[in-house]
């Protein structure tokens, strides 16, 4: 059983060896002529704009909060979907109620303007 995974293990070993090897080798034998441009972090080849440790707009937090709330409800949809056929109409109505409650929250958030970026 476990032997079937041997090729995967070998591949992982080779990949790790190659990655570590090339980094170490280039560090050991490569030429080093540092300049300001070379030492700058790579940002798609464009000149750098500002620091990476900038503060995010607080709007991201609001979107993130809403996202967490609505996203996590999917956790209840999975078991329901697996059992959907066996639960039949009853399950469908139950989930309808659940979604309706979520919808109340959604309408509230929408009407409050929390989804508008500006």
């Amino acid at each position, binding site marked *: 059983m476990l032997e079937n995974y041997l090729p995967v293990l070998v591949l992982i070993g080779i990949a790790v060896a190659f990655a570590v090897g090339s980094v170490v080798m280039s560090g050991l034998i490569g030429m080093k002529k540092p300049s300001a441009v070379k030492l700058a972090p790579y940002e798609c080849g464009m000149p750098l704009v500002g620091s990476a440790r900038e503060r995010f707009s607080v709007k991201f937090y609001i979107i993130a*909060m809403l996202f967490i709330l609505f996203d*996590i*409800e999917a*956790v*209840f949809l999975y078991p329901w979907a697996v059992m959907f056929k066996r639960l039949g109409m009853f399950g469908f109505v139950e989930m309808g109620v659940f979604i309706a409650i979520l919808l109340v929250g959604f309408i509230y958030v929408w009407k409050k303007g929390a989804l508008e970026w500006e």
Partner: protein
Amino acid sequence: MISVYHYMILSAILFAIGSFGVLTRKNMIVIFMCIELMLNSVNLTFIALSRHLGNMDGQIFVFFVMTVAAAEAAVGLALIIAFYRNKESIEVDDFRLLKW
């Protein structure tokens, strides 16, 4: 062979790390992450025990813990933002108004 005991020990360690973090850290977001770690270690306990006992109650409990944790996260973040807007800080050392 990994048994339920290993999971229990792992989750106990995670729980201890989480509660230690809550008690020692100053940054509210980090404290909050430590609380989440505690909740998730409980989830791990539940799932391991549920598997061990062959009984689904523990897994159902985990669903509820997860959703509740999300609701708490949303409320917690909102409170932190409100505090930040007034105080420009998310350090718990800046709780200065209410004490004896």
